[in-house]
């Protein structure tokens, strides 16, 4: 049912764009170099290094750059160099006609959650939730390398250790998710997937603990949690608290919020704004197994 764009081979071209926040061009140098080392050509879009206030260009400029990458048949994957905020300001103006005929991988996380959800819900297209250009600065660690595996058609298999809040079980279903703030932001819009039967993964950064609770409650009250097959809880880094503390950690709040449901859940999965951020193929079927000793997530190409 879900359409899978062709996996990349050596010599293929990857386009680099900034559909949201501003990023200095030199911050993509390491990324361009490593992608080259992997055997890919890189085209750097006009939005990389361009700036309009907070954004990497006006809505029109960012849209035009992304559109050009989507329409160019030479480009086999689009790597979003940075998130921030701004993808949802242009998403309704994207023309998907050429992309539907000639699908390609769209890569990124954080604000790019907008694209992942929209691609899944409106186009039935798989995409890759993975480290972006900034992550390449530390060289080819296992997280950056997992992106290479994801776009070249390897099986993705991640095994992590147990967490006290985990709930055991084995399920399979399409993997969907991303940044919790962006999932909340999409709720009520046409880009939001139903999440029925899905394995949902969430992560966030720099949020107030009460807001993490509120966003999860929002998803729950919108019926987005009750029919999940499973849930993967990634990093909730740099959380903030109010003057009167909420008295619980992010993981405690999340565990409370899903306590009424019986689906398996795994905490502390390496998907986050920290460097612990493995590549995940959104939309593809995965098996998710939570045992007392360990957690495995597997997805065939």
């Amino acid at each position, binding site marked *: 049912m879900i359409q899978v764009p062709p996996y990349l081979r050596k010599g293929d071209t990857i386009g680099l764009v900034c559909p949201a926040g501003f990023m200095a061009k030199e911050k993509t140098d390491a990324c361009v170099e490593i992608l080259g080392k992997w055997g890919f050509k890189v085209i750097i879009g006009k939005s990389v290094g361009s700036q309009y206030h*907070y954004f990497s260009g006006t809505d029109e400029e960012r849209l035009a750059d992304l559109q050009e990458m989507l329409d160019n048949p030479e480009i086999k994957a689009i790597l979003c160099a940075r998130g921030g905020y701004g993808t949802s300001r242009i998403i309704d103006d994207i023309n998907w006609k050429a992309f539907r005929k000639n699908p390609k991988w769209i890569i990124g996380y954080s604000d790019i959650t907008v694209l992942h959800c929209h691609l899944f819900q409106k186009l039935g297209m798989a995409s890759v939730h993975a480290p972006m250009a900034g992550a390449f600065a530390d060289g080819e660690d296992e997280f950056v390398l997992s992106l290479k595996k994801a776009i070249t058609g390897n099986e993705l298999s991640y095994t992590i250790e147990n967490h006290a809040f985990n709930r055991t079980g084995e399920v399979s279903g399409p993997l969907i998710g991303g940044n919790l703030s962006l999932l909340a*932001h999409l*709720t009520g819009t046409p880009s939001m997937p139903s999440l029925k039967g899905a394995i949902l993964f969430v992560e966030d950064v720099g949020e107030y603990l*009460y807001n993490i*609770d509120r966003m999860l409650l929002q998803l729950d009250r*919108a019926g987005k949690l009750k029919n999940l097959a499973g849930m993967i809880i990634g990093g909730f880094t740099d959380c903030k608290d109010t003057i009167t503390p909420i008295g619980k950690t992010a993981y405690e709040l999340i565990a409370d919020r899903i306590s009424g449901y019986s689906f398996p859940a795994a905490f502390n999965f390496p998907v986050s704004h920290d460097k612990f951020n493995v590549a995940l193929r959104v939309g593809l079927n995965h098996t998710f197994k939570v045992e007392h000793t360990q957690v495995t997530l597997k997805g065939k190409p």
Partner: protein
Amino acid sequence: MLRRNFLQRLGPLGATLAAAPGLVAFTNEPAAKRGPNPPYLKPGDYVGITCPAGTIDQKEARYAEVMLGRWGFKTKLGNTIGKNWNQFAGTDEERAADFQRLLDDPMVKAIIFGRGGYGTMRMMDMVNWEGFKKSPKWLVGYSDITAFHCHVNRNFGIPTIHARMAGGFGTIEDESEISLRDALSGKPEVYRWRPLPLNRQGHCEGILVGGNLSLIYAMQASSSELDTTNKILFIEDVSEYKYTVDRMLMNLKRSGKLSKLAGLIVGGFTATKAEGEGYFTISMEEIIFEKVKEYGYPVAFGFPAGHQRPNLALKFGMQFQLNVSNDICVIAEPNGLNPMLPIPFGHDSITAPIDSLPIPL
């Protein structure tokens, strides 16, 4: 099966129509969306105070009690006052039970909430609204209480009051409190305020809804989601980043909540956060106006309500006229406005003009 569902749905609708025959006058609203108005308060009536989110202490409750007493009302204090469970005034169950007690108490004609913070939507689904639907009473609050405003408006069409809460009452009665007293007592609301450059002129009429933008947003796609069609939407917020406000408004826009408004009233967007946001140099007014610029309805910035002084009372769920012109903005209940009278700026029971900049609390 379908037919039975239909009849079941028709049942309460029929009852509502019978209970409030006057509602047919609201021609641009489906009749089913309008519940009965809560009765206005008379001297000697009881006002309940409870905390569905953050708590207030006994001293704050005492100030409110004195003020309400001055207006001729008696007070019933809930047991969540002074109670603490982390950042909440008790557990979700305790806060729901305290609210439920006052909601079902026939002596209590209005409930003024203690304060906002966060927590109303954590206990809201535990509330049984059956008694309230039959004999509604005024629910008063703002900020986190927007969850109640949205839920009650969407599900029951019963008016509520967006106003200062018990925790904000001081020893001196100011215009925010006077406006609440007038709202509770049934004095038709008429407010005039100074126009701002990004206003869009025009005249409209519709039911006033809204509240805190973050909470309107948090209700999206739930059973409490605000229906904004043909409504005058009021929004305010505090301590948010500009990009977050932009993102929340994009959610409302992309879900069709801004395209069919009768009008938009923007209250205070105060204590905006800026750290790490040096490049977001677009003004809050520009951010808001950008989301509605393609539509034609009137837009009025700078209404004195929200996390600021003054925070004038607004009756949500009731019909209002909004007039935005070059030299004045007016919002008024249809029975409150005599267009022939020369009128000063500000709340019409207050002599001092409201021209000061909002002061964050």
